[in-house]
């Protein structure tokens, strides 16, 4: 697989199909990888692929430093590839401006990441070139997809509050969660708007709640469950639980799953006349 990957990257760079390949390179220790940006065909041997390729490289699509390198080819796993679908739907990217090198994946991380448990995109849904044997994507039921939430949803109101307060208390407002998130691409995050200052930017329990709730809400109908926010959080806040809860509500209420379909309307930018009336009196 690695050979095929390098060969493809070399070909793309040689033919000037792309100017740069965003991929994974070997890290300081075997259990780590790091993002690499290959611009010369002779450097393609720096590319690698293994189960430690955890990063969602699509986040570099929002970084000016990376974009300056020119038209990219990007190595994506199935989960990461969903981001590209969303970015295109949200006018952040044109399909023709990117070359997608999809890699088939059977799970990453050691121990494997939570998101890999009910993975239904072992083979990416969108790619220009597929590296690796195509894997028949599995199907999971609604309940299986959101099984992780069960134990938290079962908690009493008091327990929920206490659990989340304990989590949010740890937040140091470092904003690693939004920096890593490929879909947090606003030029000015709401937390940086100071006239008025809706969200207290200091690490205070009050502002921590509004920040974490708002961050999650701003990903409603958008988050593709790459779990990067949770992975990078230095305070170990299980941020993806919030994202997942919203994904569950979005799917339950609007039959919408982010990143799976290039053509359906963005869940939070549309409506149906028969959307649920349950909470309205």
């Amino acid at each position, binding site marked *: 697989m690695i050979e095929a990957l390098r060969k493809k990257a070399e070909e793309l760079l040689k033919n000037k199909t792309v100017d740069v390949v965003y991929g994974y390179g070997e890290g300081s220790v075997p259990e780590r990888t790091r993002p690499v940006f290959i611009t010369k065909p002779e450097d393609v041997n720096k590319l690698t692929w293994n189960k430690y390729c955890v990063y969602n490289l699509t986040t570099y699509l929002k970084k000016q430093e990376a974009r300056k390198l020119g038209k990219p080819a990007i190595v994506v796993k199935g989960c990461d590839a969903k981001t590209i679908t969303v970015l295109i739907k949200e006018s952040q990217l044109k399909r023709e401006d990117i070359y997608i090198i999809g890699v088939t994946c059977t799970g990453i991380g050691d121990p494997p990441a939570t998101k890999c448990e009910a993975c239904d995109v072992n083979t990416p849904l969108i790619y220009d070139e597929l590296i690796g044997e195509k894997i028949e994507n599995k199907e999971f039921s609604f309940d299986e997809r959101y099984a992780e939430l069960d134990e938290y949803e079962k908690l009493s109101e008091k327990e929920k509050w206490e659990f989340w307060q304990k989590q949010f208390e740890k937040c140091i407002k470092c904003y690693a969660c939004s920096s890593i998130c490929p879909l947090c691409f606003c030029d000015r995050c709401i937390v940086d708007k100071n006239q008025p200052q*809706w969200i207290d930017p200091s690490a205070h329990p009050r502002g921590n709640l509004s920040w974490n709730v708002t961050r999650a809400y701003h990903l409603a109908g958008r988050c593709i469950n790459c779990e990067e926010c949770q992975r990078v959080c230095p305070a170990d806040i299980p941020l993806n639980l919030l994202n997942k809860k919203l994904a569950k509500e979005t799917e339950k209420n609007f039959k919408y799953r982010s990143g799976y379909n290039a053509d359906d309307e963005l869940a939070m930018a549309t409506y149906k006349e028969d959307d649920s009336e349950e909470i309205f009196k």
Partner: protein
Amino acid sequence: MTEENKFEPRIVAFLCNWCTYAGADLAGTGRKEYQANVRVIKLPCTGGIDPLFLIKAFERGADGILVSGCHPGDCHYNSGNYHARRRWNVYKPLLEFCGINPDRIQFSWISAAEGAKWVETINGVVDTVRALGPFENYQKLNTIGSDTSVSSETG
């Protein structure tokens, strides 16, 4: 009187200009009495109510919030309330997931002709929130920092 009996819930209502605000006016014209715990903030449309407004109202000490606008299909702006409905359909479960009692955030459709429904709804919100008691959990968050500062100053 006991301490508990003294609790009067503080309710903030975000209302659309065309339906519920006018409905509340109609209740007034008809001199229909209701509990005075509500403070109304008027906006053109429920579709223009950002979830941040609700969070901010809790930060300012609200014990309960009502969001109310035109019935589906009747929006002055055609689809504002449909979009609002989507928004609250995901936002409310999120807050609930974080341990906020669902009765603290209520939603309704009240038309300009439904003065009586406004009275019934706002009384309902006040009563349910009164039963829940003050939203101490949230209000405590506000004071966490100030407590420390006070103690450090005096200590």
